[in-house]
């Protein structure tokens, strides 16, 4: 007797902060098919960026994702600086590194907390988020805002970090090191957590390569990819740190990678605060000539790629954002099938999916570089793009969606 049932999750679900729809087909307890609908968050930000000047775009891109606000703005700057072929001043490079690592700290702690929440370990949730608060405070001390710093600009950074707060940030790091060490030990030594998470949602190294996953998701499957090491930007070439690797590919390994990356980030931050060079903050106003550039950046979730094409005006002609979750999310296809229902949520959460990063559109451009799809057509194109992603999950596209 076939006992197939379809279970709908979302779009508004108490466990998911963002609207996303999943439908799981289950046979008894086992998941046999998983389909996702992910067009709820599509707003058209890339198009918006093409109507903003190079000075305004990084501030807009901070609003792609609340957690990766430094990621996207710095990644865009990397792309434009690649186009220009300029090196940013060393002090700006160090400031960008500090911002990026503070962001990685609070993002990893946030994930550890949410992962604990998903499996019913609310103590871990409360702990991790309590330890995350001082990181946000440090961000606020240094930039004036808990997440959106508005610091990165093309050719450097907009403002300086106030050095009088460096001792307070160092104290925060010292405390955080002890706290996360305790948290890590508690998580790693807990037999229940080990039994719950080991061997769950395994993404084999071969599957990880096939799906092209990045960041901690890849590093937990034994793939040593890290843009900070492979193609150093900002100040990473001068700093000393390790790439954390685990071969297992299960949820536990992903948690371990993130937990062990926290002390590495703390180490990077200490080195930056100690060695902070003096000098100018930015290269002043730059004219962006015709051309194209690629920016890479190791976000907390993996490699972020921005593509920028300029036509010589003060606004980018085209901006394409490929966020890390865009390649990490389809790996559910490999890690969730055959799993019991109860493991799906934590497996989905394990790659730290960020839907607001992922849901980008594409502009169709012909060989001469003229866009052949204007704004109304773009919406259709963006829907088609989402449909294509939906098809990859084996879902029939929602053709009844009004294309108004």
């Amino acid at each position: 007797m076939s006992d197939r049932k379809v279970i709908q999750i979302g779009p508004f679900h108490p466990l998911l902060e963002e609207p996303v729809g999943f439908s799981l087909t289950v046979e008894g307890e086992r998941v046999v098919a998983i389909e996702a609908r992910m067009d709820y968050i599509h707003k058209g930000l890339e198009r918006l960026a093409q109507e903003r000047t190079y000075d305004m775009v990084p501030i807009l891109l901070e609003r792609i994702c609340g957690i990766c606000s430094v990621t996207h703005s710095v990644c865009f700057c990397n792309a434009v600086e690649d186009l220009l072929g300029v090196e940013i001043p060393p002090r700006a490079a160090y400031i960008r590194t500090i911002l990026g690592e503070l962001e990685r700290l609070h993002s990893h702690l946030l994930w550890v907390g949410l992962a604990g929440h998903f499996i019913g370990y609310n103590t871990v949730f409360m702990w991790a988020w309590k330890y995350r608060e001082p990181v946000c405070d440090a961000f606020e001390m240094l930039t004036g805002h808990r997440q959106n710093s508005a610091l990165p600009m093309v050719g450097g950074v907009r403002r300086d970090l106030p050095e009088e707060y460096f001792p307070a940030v160092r104290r925060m790091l010292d405390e955080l090191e002890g706290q996360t060490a305790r948290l890590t030990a508690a998580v790693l030594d807990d037999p229940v957590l080990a039994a719950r998470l080991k061997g769950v949602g395994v993404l084999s190294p071969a599957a990880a390569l096939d799906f092209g996953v990045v960041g901690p998701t890849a590093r937990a499957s034994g793939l040593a990819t890290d843009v900070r090491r492979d193609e150093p930007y900002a100040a990473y070439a001068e700093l000393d740190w390790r790439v954390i690797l685990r071969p297992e590919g299960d949820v536990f390994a992903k948690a371990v990678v993130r937990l062990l990356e926290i002390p590495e980030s703390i180490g990077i931050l200490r080195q930056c605060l100690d060695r902070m060079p003096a000098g100018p903050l930015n290269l002043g106003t730059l004219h962006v000539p015709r051309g194209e550039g690629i920016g890479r950046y190791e976000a907390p979730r993996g490699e972020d790629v921005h593509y920028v094409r300029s036509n010589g005006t003060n606004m980018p002609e085209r901006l394409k954002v490929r966020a890390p979750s865009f390649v990490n999310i389809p790996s559910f296809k490999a890690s969730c099938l055959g799993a019991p229902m109860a493991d799906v949520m934590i497996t989905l959460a394990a790659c730290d999916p960020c839907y607001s990063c992922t849901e980008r559109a594409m502009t169709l451009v012909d060989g001469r570089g003229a866009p052949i799809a204007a704004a109304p057509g773009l919406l259709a194109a963006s829907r088609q793009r989402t449909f294509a992603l939906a098809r990859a999950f084996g879902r029939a596209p929602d053709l009844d969606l009004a294309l108004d």
Partner: protein
Amino acid sequence: MPATSLFDRALRKSPWVFHVGTSGCNNCDIEIADCLTPRFDVERFGVRLVGSPRHADILLVSGPVSRACRAPLQEAWLEMPRPRAALLVGVCACSMGAYRDAYGVAGPADRVIREVDPEAKLVYVPGCPPKPETIIAGLVKLLGEL
């Protein structure tokens, strides 16, 4: 009527909240979750996040409303029992903020909710994102209005 005042008191002492993230950048959602964690801990005021709009007194909306999210948000609002109110967290929910000119958004959350309920009681919490303290201040203001 005494029964009503008891009901009102219970409502004010323990408002249940359903959170709808409508296509925002996630930042407000994180600050909302932050309100639940040890430093801010809104549960000491009886505030609880619940799993269904049918159990909720307050709808927490964050983010601009994308075209795809418009109908689900209106549906969530109509499912809520009365008296009901919405707390619009973040500048996007209030007035769309940075996404004002984007083609994929249907409007700020207040307009989308008022399309189905012109009398809806709304409290605006601006900020990008508002700090947890601001969200709590907005919530307290809303409780006074209920």
